[in-house]
């Protein structure tokens, strides 16, 4: 079982967003970066599939700055075999550019599965995985919460509004991971030490400018100051009156 996992280095979810002086990007000063949480599920799933198959290789691929090597090492510490960084200082807003670079990297490499997180928690783009599938003409299931693989095919569960789809697909395939797919392992000290010696190839990413131009990054509008209506169950009637008469939502 040969598996590629495409990952992204993202700001931690506790990050307080400060906008850089260009008015178009995040001020990264003091920001802690992590492996995108949805990608952790993808890495974990790849490791389990390789373990289940008894043989294989898990390759981590990322598009990002030089510092993304640390993010790749995190995945290697979890147990992946080697990494590839397609290095770039600027990541275009257009996910199709990222998808093209990743597709060129994983194309014709004999992967049985190409895994992604369903989205990155920074750009919320929800798109690179299925775009890679389309570019490579591979079957694709997005946002999977359960996976079974056997006999050259797979079955996945995918949450939709008010239900869960059961989806069959043949391998090779592109899958994107939803939270709940598994419980990612923490890298053990032994894994962290071993990761330092695992191969990590760094090469320049070939990226176009893409079709999305960033005009501005702004803070969201502040919600107007709220108020405490009252204390305990006695406040319920006043709350309802306000919801009906002032907010007009009931």
């Amino acid at each position, binding site marked *: 079982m040969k598996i590629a996992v495409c990952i992204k280095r993202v700001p931690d979810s506790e990050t307080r967003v400060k906008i850089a002086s260009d008015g178009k990007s995040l001020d990264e000063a003091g920001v802690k970066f992590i492996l995108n*949480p949805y990608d952790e599920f993808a890495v974990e799933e790849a490791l389990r599939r390789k373990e289940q198959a008894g043989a294989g290789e898990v390759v981590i691929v990322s598009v990002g700055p030089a510092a993304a090597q640390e993010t790749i090492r995190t995945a290697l510490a979890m147990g992946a075999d080697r990494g590839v960084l397609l290095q770039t200082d600027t990541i275009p*807003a257009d996910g199709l550019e990222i998808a093209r670079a990743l597709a060129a990297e994983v194309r014709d490499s004999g992967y049985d599965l190409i895994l992604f997180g369903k989205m990155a928690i920074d750009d919320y783009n929800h*798109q690179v995985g299925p775009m890679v599938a389309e570019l490579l003409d591979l079957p694709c299931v997005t946002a999977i919460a359960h996976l079974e693989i056997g006999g050259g095919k797979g079955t996945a569960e995918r949450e939709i509004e008010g239900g869960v789809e059961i989806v069959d697909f043949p391998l090779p395939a592109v899958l994107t991971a939803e939270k709940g797919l598994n419980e990612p392992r923490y890298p053990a000290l032994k894994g962290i030490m071993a990761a330092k010696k695992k191969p990590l190839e760094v090469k320049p990413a070939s990226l176009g400018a893409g079709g999305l131009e960033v005009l501005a990054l702004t803070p969201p509008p502040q919600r107007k100051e709220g108020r405490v209506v009252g204390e305990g169950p006695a406040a319920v009637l006043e709350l309802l009156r306000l919801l009906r008469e002032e907010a007009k939502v*009931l």
Partner: protein
Amino acid sequence: MSKVLAVLEQREGALRKVSSEVVTGARRLADGLAGRVDALVLAAGSVQGIDQLGGFGADTVLTLTNDAFGRDAPEACTRVIADRAKAGGYRAVVFAASATGRDLAPRVAARLGVALAQDVTDVAVEGGAVTVIHPVYAGKALLKLKLTATPAIVSLRPNVFTPVQRPKAGSAETVAVPAPTGRVVVTAIKPATAGTLDVAEAPIVISGGRGLKEPANFKVLEELAAAFGGRAAVGASRAVVDAGWRPHADQVGQTGKTVSPTLYIAVGISGAIQHLAGMRTSKVIVAINKDKDAPIFKVADYGVVGDLFEVVPRLTEEIRKLHG
């Protein structure tokens, strides 16, 4: 004339609510481009609700039918939509950022070789170009983007584009089409146990956090949701999802769903930054918490300080009276 393609969604032959929102967003773009809106529905047969779409601004509604479209058929739908977008010379293609739309839009964009702005909360035409607002960092910042490729492909966040009546002719046509066989096949759909409303699409969301103390106590919130007569869904904070009390599908926040209901009621939720990120675009926020210093009160329009096990049942009782 500039044309905008609105890709709608149906389930089991009934148009989904997001579809009128998609027509509304598409109409806004078409007005800016002095163009028209063609609505497109893929279905197994005839679709209920099609006749309403003209009211929201669809100039034409085309239903393409094939047995394969009875369930999500991503590969066949991608081809049919992409072919349509290309052959019709559309200036923009609008999807819903729903489970289905979020899956299809990137495939269609890649097939057409153009950029996609996913999950946007506003669309406009400025100087002839399509611009969008796309929340990033879970809504902690808003990215304004210009789409420079044609067609401009966007998906709209559910519940944000309030449908407005903009009557147009809405001429309807149904055509049976061939559909390529897909490799990805939906073999079954299990209905969610929690009910049919998804937190991302419900007009009212009632979320619970650690203040509920134990999983069984979510019954208190489910009763309140039921009192709203099928318009409310029960959500959860990351803490209780990670503890295994509630399914992940119910999680609201940066690593869960981003919601924009008309009314969001946060119960026993302190208001961690990652939770606030997921619900701050709600129209009205109510917080019920026993800790008067909880950060949730800073974003709540209306707060009630008190024991949720006393406040919520009282609220349920009063809502029942309203809807009784």
